[in-house]
């Protein structure tokens, strides 16, 4: 561990401890590294808890099992949503924010002591909200729509968590300023940092929306405010609820580029084009929140269609640019490394046995084909009506947030443990199979929930047989079959998730310590040098990628028009 002087400062405060990572060559600030470790461990802990709660939800939706009673189901569903959709992902994103700023820019982290305060606020907030839910009187689900009312400490927990996250965002921005002032990089920031900045910007809008709606809701829960308009609540809440998922999209795209760079030395096809795609995210991605209000009366079609079918498509364009750039970068890097046989030789000879690479590719394919296409369907006002507020919606966001984000984050963990914990991954065979098992399970969850949703199954109903209900409805037998398959898929996904948690915990605790010699004889990130550089492959001779992207476009167009056909069948025109 080297101690270096910070330019422009005098005394002990001027000295910061850095080390040069033997695996990546990155200049790692010790205080940033400790914070990255702690946030990663916290994230994985919440994933373990939240994943098990998700299994209970799926086994209850499986009507033949129907595990939990109604009240318990809604409590577990609320806790599951908070633990995985908020706490697992956002603690992991804090680690990624510090990684893409301080580590990639070879800088010290801004105000590490305040970063600890942010961590403490987030942890206290997460625990407070979780306790409130488990006490049983805050089963308001992830959306917590008014007039459903939770206990005040549920809202206080979420607000504390959000304040901690907001502080983290400003620490990211402060680190950019420090890095520029101290000259740790020249010119433009590398793409990973730019992607991190994009995530931070969307996160700040997300948290601002959260503050606008959660603070009045807290005051309403303690009786200071008498009434909150449900439609206004819904509008502002989704500014937080959906935008937070857009941070996830942004950060898993960053992770795709990062894994490709670390493993293969892959650069984006064009740094400028990829940065422009992130700019489209900054400008338009948050507007997709509007698709949750597409059937609300009282809001004009102009607002709905502008925010979804116009602005949102520009953000989709950004995703499609990344969707071509990432496999294109991998193809270009593989061809440069000598894998030039035929159109797909680069793909056949890719490191499929490396769990980080497997997770990257599976996440990319499933996010694009399942999450991306279904997102466009939900974002089109006319065909949204086919599956609005059905199980199709959780099917869609399990494809984006679980198959996409969670799988990508799992993949990069297999690189972050050797880099930041200086430990080898234990149980390599389990690690090798883990992304495939998890991907099969989550693909099933997404597909079968979307299938049940297409058949009209409500997204939040505990019992689709409507036992003892005054007004009943008979869903087709296929819907029950879909929910059974969803339960089986959830079991597979839970096995995949448990494999991940076991490997991570065992590696951190018992993994063999990596030495400088290990970095030479068993490199885990041979292409790391390009991660901290600005610049692209600047080639478009990518026959394999062009074929893959063409397949995607055909699938996209077919599914889009099939849904218009479904709509025409519902409303026959004469």
């Amino acid at each position, binding site marked *: 561990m080297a101690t270096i002087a910070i330019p422009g400062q005098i005394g002990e405060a001027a000295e910061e401890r850095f080390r040069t990572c033997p695996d990546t060559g990155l200049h790692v600030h010790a205080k940033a590294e400790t914070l990255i470790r702690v946030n990663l461990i916290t994230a994985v802990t919440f994933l373990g808890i939240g994943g098990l709660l998700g299994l209970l939800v799926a086994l209850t939706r499986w009507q033949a099992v129907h595990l939990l009673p109604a009240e318990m189901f809604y409590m577990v569903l609320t806790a599951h949503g908070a633990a995985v959709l908020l706490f697992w992902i956002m603690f992991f994103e804090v680690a990624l924010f510090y990684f893409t700023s301080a580590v990639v820019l070879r800088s010290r982290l801004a105000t590490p002591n305040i970063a600890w305060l942010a961590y403490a606020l987030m942890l206290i907030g997460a625990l407070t909200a979780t306790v409130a839910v488990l006490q049983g009187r805050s089963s308001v689900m992830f959306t917590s729509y008014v007039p459903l009312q939770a206990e005040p400490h549920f809202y206080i927990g979420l607000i504390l968590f959000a304040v901690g996250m907001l502080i983290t965002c400003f620490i990211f921005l402060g680190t950019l300023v420090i890095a520029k002032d101290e000259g740790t990089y020249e010119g433009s920031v590398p793409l990973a940092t730019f992607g991190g900045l994009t995530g931070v910007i969307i996160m*700040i809008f997300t948290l601002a929306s959260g503050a606008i709606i959660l603070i009045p809701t807290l005051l309403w829960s303690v009786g200071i405010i008498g009434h909150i308009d449900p439609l206004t609540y819904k509008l502002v809440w989704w500014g937080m609820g959906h935008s937070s998922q857009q941070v996830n999209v942004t950060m898993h795209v960053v992770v795709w580029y990062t894994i490709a760079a670390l493993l293969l030395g892959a650069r984006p096809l064009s740094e400028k084009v990829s940065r422009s795609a992130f700019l489209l995210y900054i400008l338009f991605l948050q507007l997709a929140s509007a698709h949750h209000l597409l059937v609300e009366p009282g809001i004009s079609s102009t607002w709905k269609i502008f925010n979804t079918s116009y602005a949102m498509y520009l953000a989709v364009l950004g995703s499609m640019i990344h969707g071509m750039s990432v496999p294109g970068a991998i193809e270009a890097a593989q061809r440069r490394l000598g894998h030039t046989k035929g159109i797909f030789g680069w793909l056949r000879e890719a490191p499929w046995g490396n769990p980080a690479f497997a997770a990257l590719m599976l996440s990319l394919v499933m996010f694009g084909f399942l999450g991306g296409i279904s997102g466009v369907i939900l974002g089109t006002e006319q065909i949204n009506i086919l599956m609005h507020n059905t199980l199709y919606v959780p099917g869609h966001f399990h494809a984006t947030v679980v198959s996409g984000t969670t799988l990508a984050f799992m993949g990069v963990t297999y690189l972050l443990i050797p880099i930041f914990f200086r430990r080898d991954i234990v149980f390599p065979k389990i690690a090798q199979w883990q992304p495939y098992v998890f991907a099969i399970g989550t693909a099933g969850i997404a597909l079968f929930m979307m299938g049940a949703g297409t058949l009209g199954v409500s997204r939040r109903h505990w019992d689709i047989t409507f036992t003892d209900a005054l007004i009943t409805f008979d869903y087709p037998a296929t819907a029950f079959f879909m929910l059974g398959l969803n339960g089986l898929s959830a079991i597979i996904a839970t096995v995949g998730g448990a494999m991940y948690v076991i490997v991570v915990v065992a590696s951190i605790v018992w993994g063999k310590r990596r030495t400088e010699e290990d970095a030479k004889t068993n490199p885990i990130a041979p292409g790391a040098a390009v991660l901290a550089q600005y610049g692209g492959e600047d080639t478009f001779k990518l026959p394999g990628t062009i074929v893959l992207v063409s397949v995607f476009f055909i699938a996209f167009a077919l599914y889009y028009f099939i849904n218009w056909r479904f709509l025409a069948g519902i409303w026959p025109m004469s």
Partner: protein
Amino acid sequence: MVERIGAVSQDEPAAGAAERDERPPFMQRLLDNPFLLLFIGVTVPTVLYLIWGILEIAQIPLSPS
């Protein structure tokens, strides 16, 4: 004296003029400015999604009591 942007005075060194000609293009300057990006990234959705949406809701007439 106010000098026009881009104008080169007679006695200005050639190196300075060349440097001014090599000013990064607008898009690059935009993408290299995190705080400008932060401003537009918060303003655009605030105006198009939040403010416009709340104005729409505010225009819904109240039902007669």
